[in-house]
């Protein structure tokens, strides 16, 4: 890292410095999110063409696909945070990790639910043990496990390290799970029932999709900042209460 820069990433370890930066970034992000979603949803519903086979149901794609991307993106970010916790002992890394996990789970859930709603009219079923759906489901289970571990360990520092290790183990396992599920699926059912990849996407659909994806990204980043600030405040309250409890004769 460049030491001459006024705010290196190490300085962000100071909660006050972090909060100042978060405050500066938050409003632009919220405005960007609003703008991108407004433009993206307009594109979704009014500009982009209906599919010649699926009709208007194809518009679910603009909600569904970015959620799937984010589900993986958040996990990748959590892996970086886990490295930050274990290797660099960066105090903000585990705050970010803790803040990210429920958001990742939420995006995964949105992906599954919208996929299910999309599946009903196009495939005629709410749920299919399809390779992709199954691996996304396992991803959700891993997210839930991480959240459960966060809640189970009292001490945030110890919880952070345990979760970091779990996140890394999960990261090693996710490609294997993906591969094994693909293999299991192709073995049991020939890929003739439905074609997920379809034709290469037309630019008129790609543009709203990309805008929605950017909107999801800025939404994620704003929520992440808010959650990180909340977590910092919660820890501060916890610390102050402990301090107050230690002083004899005074109550928090």
């Amino acid at each position, binding site marked *: 890292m460049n030491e001459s820069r006024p705010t290196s990433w190490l300085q962000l370890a100071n909660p006050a410095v972090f909060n100042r930066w978060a405050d500066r970034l938050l409003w632009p992000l919220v405005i960007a999110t609003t703008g991108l979603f407004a433009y993206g949803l307009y594109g979704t519903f009014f500009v982009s063409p209906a599919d010649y086979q699926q009709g208007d149901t194809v518009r679910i794609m603009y909600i569904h696909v970015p959620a799937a991307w984010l589900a993986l993106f958040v996990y990748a970010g959590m892996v970086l945070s886990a490295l930050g916790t*274990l290797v660099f002992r960066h105090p903000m890394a585990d705050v970010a990790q803790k803040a990210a996990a429920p958001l990742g789970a939420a995006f995964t859930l949105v992906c599954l639910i919208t996929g299910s709603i999309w599946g009903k009219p196009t495939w005629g079923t709410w749920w299919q043990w399809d390779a992709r759906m199954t691996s996304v489901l*396992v991803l959700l*289970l*891993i997210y*839930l*496990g991480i959240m*459960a*571990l966060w809640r*189970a*360990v009292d001490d945030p520092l*110890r919880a952070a*390290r*345990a979760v970091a*290790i*779990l996140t*890394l*183990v*999960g990261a*090693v*396992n996710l490609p*294997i*799970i993906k*591969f*094994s*599920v693909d*293999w*299991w699926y192709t*073995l049991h059912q020939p890929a003739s029932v439905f074609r997920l990849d379809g034709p290469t996407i037309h630019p008129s659909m790609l543009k709203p999709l990309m805008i929605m994806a950017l909107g999801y990204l800025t939404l994620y980043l704003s929520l992440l900042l808010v959650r990180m600030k909340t977590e910092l405040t919660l820890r501060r309250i916890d610390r102050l209460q402990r301090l107050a409890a230690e002083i004899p004769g005074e109550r928090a």
Partner: protein
Amino acid sequence: MKAWLAILARDLRLARRVGAGAELGLVFFLILVSLLPFAIGADQRFISRIAPAFLWLSALLATLLGLDRLLQADEEEGVLDQFLLAGAPLEWLLLAKALAHWLVTGLPLSLVAPLLGLMLAIEPQAMIPLALSLLVGTPALTLIGLIGAALTVSLKRGGLLLSVLVLPLTVPTLIFGATLVKEAALGRAFTTPLMLLGGMTLLMLVIAPVSAAAALRHARQ
């Protein structure tokens, strides 16, 4: 090496004397298998079809049984602290614990599985592959469980959490294991799933001791 053998012998002796060892796991396995026909009816052909999957699921659950106590008792008695103080690498010592756990759960399970397969009307030619798949695959389950046990070691009631953490990671092992038996029952070659299953076990042999040791070290800083 001496410490390693001592830990292995101690854990095996504990399992035998405390009685929560091999027999109880096998009884659990047997109960699960005998519950299946009650749940789905006595249709032999149907049972025969789902038997490989069910036997693998039962093996998975039976492996989970002792996991929450795998490291917890040692944590409470301070044995893990001694492990950390000992000169030998913690990863290596944990491997002995995992091996002891497998010797009293996975191994007997694999050996009696053909017998239970008989009860569930598995094709005769799939009996040996069934035992083989469990023999090769259950070490992976134990090793994944070792990670979960290390992560939840300090929790008072970590059993359920442990299962939630561990089960999603066992998906590949389950897939390859159950597929192997199914392929064998259909009279087809099963080298590919067998090799993948072996690969899972070898991979976990590398990952699990390292991550479990890291979890234990970080838990006491």
